[in-house]
């Protein structure tokens, strides 16, 4: 908070004050609490939190200020020029003792059974600042449920949160964080005075996507995690710093692990103000449980006679050598293809690329197994847009933030929290422009919902509106106008469903912004016409000069997508990367590069005979299950490396167990381009191996050593990462074609397949805590849509598309207000991607009620 305040307020306005005899100069507006912290004096407090507004409820942070007769609370007092503060005088010490005494009079003697013991703020502060005996003498207040008159008054208020109201010291941190930082209202304070209790809202439960943070900020054991409950005492664990592997932000986390059992016990935040502010989404917090899961692949499997049997590593590698060798000798390396997960670390990605390009001599690799019809051109507008620089910390400094084509609560949780912080604390304005109403628009000044499939027309509309209102440079306007004027502004309003005033509002906001952040997300990245949309964005950028006064980028979704791009993992890497690879390796295969779509096509035609997948599940996640299964079922030899048995490993001839990211040191590049290291927490479980090790073993089967040693590998990676891999936008304005939207009346409802807010990819299904939040697929509908079909919440709905059909329960959404259907893709029990057709711009389905 102090840093952000520093940058927001002009550096010129500072004041000097004296704290405990030391002089310090701080920016104007800093509170005495943070001024003292800057010289290393830590004033004790319960209810103060860096990222929340001060509330002065606990009264623990007293200080004595000259010329003020009463003790002042330092979290609420702004430091002024010439103030003389003393934080340790006799009066202050007596005051703190009194507050601890008051706090403890109704606090139960639960320390032996309380999970917070050992890391409890109340324990620590009582020991350092309190009395050592009590003169209360009465019966303590107890909150009890009539039905369970037992000794232990624990209430389960959410799938993962247990509340004990007796222990609560009413610092209100949970309520404030929930409201200010996350924008949720499912926990609150009820009653008054000393009968005040914190509880979930009546009839509800605390299950928002950030609910785990409430447990972490509770200073006592009132809110505890169900998955940490009675597991181990915190002083018996060790901590290891790491990086979250489920999202592109690269949230900093800490593993708590124990060596004797080789077990990871929990994940907490490791506050990094530039990325996450210390808040973790629930996926980050509970996703680590897949590491401990009992159902992990323990040994390699080999398919013998139609069944997969356990085998040893040597046997599995021998089979790979035999088959891959045959394919390579008979048909050449171009008949081998590979797909790797973008969540793996740099070393694994680079080893994969080197294995294919130098040993198999094929360009058939890709890292985006869940995107349809990706371009095979290195400088398509989408590739350029995805390579642009982005800084999460700059979101706070922006005064206009526009999110386009992204449902942040499902994809980029930490960016949503940063936007909330910018709007609440730093008076930014946010606009949300999406094909359906999203939850994250609750802090937006206005939300614009356009008709699905008209994304580039919206951007054109903004440019046209700006040209009409003369908000931009006229020469640029004259150059752009003929290229986007196939449809006039009023026709655009008809096509997109937005009004002229809305286009004008956006145009004004962009042009008058001092610093702007323009975020483009997965809805655009997954769309068939992503290139067209990014071409329109290129025009917008050039017209308004967005990147001169801010940032515009397509955010990468996975933990190391940026790393994969920089290390040349796509079939057609950037030119500069290609040149560097040629320099390092001395050679570069000149065969036709093939991305995922082409590879699956060729597998179907039996021109690709061998396929290796590492950490991905294209059967479940590729947006056209029919197409993917045709390819993968036809291929002669399939090798699948994964942590669990999935739909893809079922088809494989050889299955190799993969390590999770917690079991080896790895470098990950987040969506900003920052390299962060996740350290090894536990030794690899069972016989799993890291991906780079597997690549080296496969290479050594052919008698070639991939790298001399670890150091040479790291050096090669360093060489690649030191290149400037930001592609420049095209110089001229691009022409945007307009193709008429076709709609099939018998499949009227547009469908969006995305992640559940509590899940990411195909692995989080194995985490028991995340399954407590949502454990099976559903179709999310607006109230109006549900009424049209005639279903209530939870009733089964038949979802049909031209190629597939599923039956899922309906879920009525609080935010959706148009006729769309949203289905999550993370559950193996429902084959959601069988509804999709990869060549369609907007997938559409028909919804009918299932009669009993």
């Amino acid at each position: 908070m102090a840093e952000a305040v520093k940058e927001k307020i002009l550096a010129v306005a500072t004041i000097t004050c004296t704290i405990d005899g030391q002089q310090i100069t701080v920016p104007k507006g800093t509170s005495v609490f943070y001024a003292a912290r800057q010289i290393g004096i830590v004033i004790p407090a319960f209810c103060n939190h860096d990222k929340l507004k001060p509330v002065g409820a606990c009264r623990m942070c007293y200080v004595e200020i000259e010329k003020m007769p009463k003790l002042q609370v330092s979290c609420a007092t702004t430091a002024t020029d010439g103030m003389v503060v003393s934080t340790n005088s006799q009066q202050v010490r007596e005051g703190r003792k009194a507050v601890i005494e008051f706090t403890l009079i109704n606090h139960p003697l639960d320390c032996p059974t309380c999970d917070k013991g050992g890391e409890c703020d109340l324990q620590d502060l009582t020991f350092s600042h309190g009395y050592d005996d009590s003169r209360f003498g009465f019966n303590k207040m107890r909150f009890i449920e009539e039905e369970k008159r037992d000794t232990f008054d624990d209430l389960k208020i959410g799938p993962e949160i247990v509340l004990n109201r007796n222990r609560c010291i009413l610092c209100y941190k949970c309520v404030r964080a929930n409201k200010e930082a996350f924008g949720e209202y499912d926990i609150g304070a009820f009653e008054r005075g000393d009968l005040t209790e914190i509880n979930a809202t009546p009839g509800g439960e605390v299950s928002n996507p950030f609910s785990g943070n409430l447990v972490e900020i509770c200073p006592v054991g009132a809110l505890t995690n169900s998955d940490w409950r009675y597991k181990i005492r915190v002083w018996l664990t060790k901590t290891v710093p790491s990086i979250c592997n489920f999202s592109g932000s690269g949230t900093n986390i800490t593993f708590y692990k124990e060596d004797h059992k080789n077990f990871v016990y929990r994940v907490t935040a490791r506050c990094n103000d530039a990325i996450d502010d210390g808040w973790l989404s629930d996926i980050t917090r509970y996703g680590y449980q897949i590491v401990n899961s009992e159902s992990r692949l323990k040994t390699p499997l080999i398919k013998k006679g139609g069944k997969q049997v356990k085998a040893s590593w040597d046997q599995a590698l021998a089979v790979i050598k035999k088959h891959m060798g045959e394919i390579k000798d008979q048909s050449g390396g171009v008949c081998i293809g590979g797909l790797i997960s973008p969540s793996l670390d740099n070393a694994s990605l680079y080893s994969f690329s080197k294995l294919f390009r130098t040993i198999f001599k094929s360009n058939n690799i890709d890292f985006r197994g869940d995107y349809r019809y990706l371009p095979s051109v290195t400088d398509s507008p989408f590739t350029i847009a995805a390579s642009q620089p982005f800084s999460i910390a700059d979101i706070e400094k922006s005064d206009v933030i526009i999110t386009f084509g992204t449902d942040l609560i499902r994809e980029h949780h930490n960016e949503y929290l940063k936007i909330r912080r910018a709007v609440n604390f730093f008076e930014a304005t946010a606009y949300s422009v999406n094909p359906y109403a999203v939850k994250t628009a609750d802090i937006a000044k206005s939300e614009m919902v356009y008709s699905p499939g008209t994304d580039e027309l919206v951007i054109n509309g903004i440019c046209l509106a700006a040209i009409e209102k003369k908000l931009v440079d006229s020469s640029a306007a004259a150059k752009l106008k003929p290229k986007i004027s196939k449809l006039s502004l009023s026709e655009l309003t008809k096509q997109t469903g937005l009004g002229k005033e809305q286009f004008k509002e956006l145009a004004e906001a962009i042009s008058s912004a001092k610093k702007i952040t323009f975020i483009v997300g997965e809805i655009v990245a997954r769309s068939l016409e992503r290139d067209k949309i990014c071409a329109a964005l290129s025009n917008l950028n050039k017209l308004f000069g967005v990147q001169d006064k801010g940032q515009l980028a397509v955010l990468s979704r996975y933990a190391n997508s940026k790393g994969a791009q920089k290390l040349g993992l796509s079939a057609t890497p950037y030119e500069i990367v290609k040149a560097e690879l040629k320099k390092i390796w001395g050679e570069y295969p000149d065969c036709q590069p093939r991305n995922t779509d082409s590879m699956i096509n060729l597998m179907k035609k039996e021109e690709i005979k061998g396929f290796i997948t590492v950490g991905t599940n294209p059967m479940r996640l590729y947006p056209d299950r029919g197409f993917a299964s045709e390819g993968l079922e036809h291929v002669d030899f399939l090798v699948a490396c994964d942590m669990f048995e999935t739909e893809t490993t079922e088809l494989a001839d050889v299955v190799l167990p993969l390590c999770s990211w917690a079991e080896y040191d790895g470098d990950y590049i987040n969506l900003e381009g920052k390299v962060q290291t996740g350290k090894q927490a536990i030794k690899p479980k069972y016989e799993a191996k890291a991906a780079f090790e597997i690549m080296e073993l496969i290479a050594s089967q052919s008698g070639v050593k991939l790298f001399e040693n670890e150091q040479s590998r790291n050096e090669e990676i360093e060489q690649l990462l030191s290149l400037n891999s930001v592609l420049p936008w095209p110089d001229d304005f691009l022409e945007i074609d307009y193709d008429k939207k076709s709609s099939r009346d018998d499949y009227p409802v547009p469908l969006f397949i995305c992640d559940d807010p509590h899940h990411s990819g195909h692995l989080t299904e194995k985490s028991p805590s995340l399954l407590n939040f949502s454990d099976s697929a559903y179709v999310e509908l607006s109230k109006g849509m549900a009424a049209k079909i005639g279903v209530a919440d939870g009733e089964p709905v038949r979802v049909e598309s031209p190629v597939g059909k599923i039956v899922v329960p309906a879920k009525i959404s609080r935010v959706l207000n148009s006729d769309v259907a949203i289905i999550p893709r993370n559950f193996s029990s429902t084959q959601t991607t069988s509804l999709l057709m990869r060549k369609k711009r907007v997938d559409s389905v028909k919804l009918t009620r299932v009669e009993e």
Partner: protein
Amino acid sequence: MTFYSPVVTNAKEIAGHEKLHLFEYVEDEKQYQLKRYLEHGGYAAWKTVLGKMKPEEVIEEVKKSGLRGRGGAGFPTGMKWSFVPKDSPKVRYLLCNADESEPGTCKDRVLMERDPHVVIEGMAIGAYAIGCHLMFCYIRGEFHHSIERIEKAMEEAYSKGHLGKNIYGSGYDLEMIVHTGAGAYMCGEETGLINSIEGEKGMARIRPPFPAIEGLWECPTIVNNVESLAAVPHIINRGADWYRSMGTEKSAGTKLFSLSGHINRPGNYEVELGFSLQKLIYDANYGNGISDGKKLKAVIPGGVSTPFLTPDKVDVPLDYESLTEAGSMLGSGGVIVLHEDTCIVWTILKLIKFFRHESCGKCTPCREGTGWLEQIIQKIEDGRGGPDDLEKLDSICGNILGRTICPLGDAAVMPIQSTLKHWRDEWQYHIEHKKCLVNQNFGF
């Protein structure tokens, strides 16, 4: 038509008395109707202000008159109005604090039920002075009749063009909303009231930032008591010098006092500030002496948040400074009189039960401390007191005083401290002999 609140006032004595004004027409049955109010010269000040005065001039006039807040704090009203930043682009709000929950005080209720239009007029003038176009009147939920009367008065004012758009053709818009509370003493506190209107729990907020800079929905807000606002039209009509001529030098004007307790004529009385408390209790026109002919034991001069006064201090002028010198506070003017057969411990138990029930629960000393104090005092009253209990009470009171967010903590503790100082022997008797010093307890 019956009066809803059958409270005795000294209106008949003052009808025609040119100094006392708040209760001038309060005995008139039809005063609450707009027609009668206009006949008595109503809304003339509002017309004057809109037609001839600028907002700064209004603030100057009120400052000159020396009007001080009548809700309890006694802060000069004109100075409070001038704290609103003139160049702030944000909307301003004026809130009328009609959440009269201080035990012993029932003066605002009379004004709202019998003379609601003067309140509306005062609010309107205040709103104009600070540049506000939407004002709220926050009335306590239990005052059904006051709410009815004020709402009806508001509708009448709207229908006849005293509120609404383009009032009297001056181009000024003013809207009013009546908001009812739901039974919390804390919502009578400034920041609690603001939180309540925003829809949150009625808990206090830390100050700074002060409501005049950042209040309701983070806009500049002024919160004034009903009585202060009711005096404003009279100031505009008769001039600031007239107001200053009443009362004392530092405490100008008149005040309503609600006299209750062991008194022969309980009721609401309007007197000039500086009036002698002894006269208020004993004079035949006012209190007419202690009931049952007993002797005086203690007086609470300003509602139960103020320290008790011993009988030797009773001859004190009723104004802000003199009472502070005597060791108490003027507060909201609810004078409670206790005769010699009242047990002090029993009285204090009643008060601390109230404060514990009404504490909002935000800051630790008030929330836990009032509960602890109640348990100790209950123990003493039941005859189970221990020898170190008085020391404990002193220590706990010292730990709460001045250490809380809002003055409720101080209000809970100051009466206890004053009784421990002046009637310590009675407390001691309770502990040693396990019964009351005086003959009997009885119900009010």
